[in-house]
């Protein structure tokens, strides 16, 4: 039986930058335990960091009464991470393209773009209220071999 099947862990975090840093570190460690190589660990942890920043900054707006949640679900073929906040919600249809000439020199607006660049699948769902961002990284041959060894 594959030991990676049906494994899900959820963290409840305060709306602080400390939580963002902790989430990034945890993502790096979880991805490493799951057999992802260092580059993939970096990409996964950076995607989680950006999603956490969005949850804290744009979603919950640092509200101490609001939490955000990160769930790691280990599937045989992929790592699925869900980041959920309790904010006003994000319209996934209304995210500017940071590569557009008018946006290239803006000082913000690259978080979702980086998440999409680093993960294999990204889904953004407006929960009204709240936003749920689901990140998927497929387990590659290297990761699978590491686990089987």
């Amino acid at each position: 039986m594959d030991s990676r099947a049906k494994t899900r862990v959820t963290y409840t975090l305060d709306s602080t930058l400390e939580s963002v840093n902790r989430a990034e570190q945890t993502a790096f460690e979880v991805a490493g335990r799951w057999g992802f190589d260092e580059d993939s660990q970096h990409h996964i942890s950076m995607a989680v960091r950006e999603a956490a920043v969005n949850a804290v900054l744009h979603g919950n707006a640092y509200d101490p009464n609001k939490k955000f949640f990160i769930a790691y679900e280990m599937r045989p073929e992929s790592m699925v991470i869900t980041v959920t906040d309790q904010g006003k919600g994000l319209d996934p249809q209304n995210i500017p393209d940071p590569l557009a000439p008018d946006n290239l020199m803006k000082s913000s607006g690259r978080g979702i773009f980086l998440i999409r660049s680093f993960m294999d699948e990204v889904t953004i769902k407006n929960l009204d209220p709240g936003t749920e961002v689901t990140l998927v990284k497929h387990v590659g041959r290297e990761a699978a071999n590491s686990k089987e060894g």
Partner: protein
Amino acid sequence: MTLKANNRQVDGVTVVDLNGRITLGEGSIILRDTVRDLLGKGRKNILLNLANVTYIDSSGIGELVSAFTSVRNQQGELKLLKLTKKVHDLLQITKLYTVFDVKDEEADAVKSFPKSA
């Protein structure tokens, strides 16, 4: 690891040796304050040495863009030195690699600044 910024003058260019992470919060603020302070002192030729910058997030990228724009608005120049692979890749992905003047060697970078600025 928080960001540390140390400045030194080399032939009219302020080289800022950055060490640590440029991320939302303290890292971005330190970079912003450093560049603002230099501009306030009239130092408009700025070379950011990123050799020891281990991590940049989207906020840090935004801060680099803001620094670039602030310096240019003061008729100065801001260039980047010695990108790590991770930072290089980030600037490529975000199409900012060609916006910044990126150098590999400090001596060459210093020579590339205008002498009058």
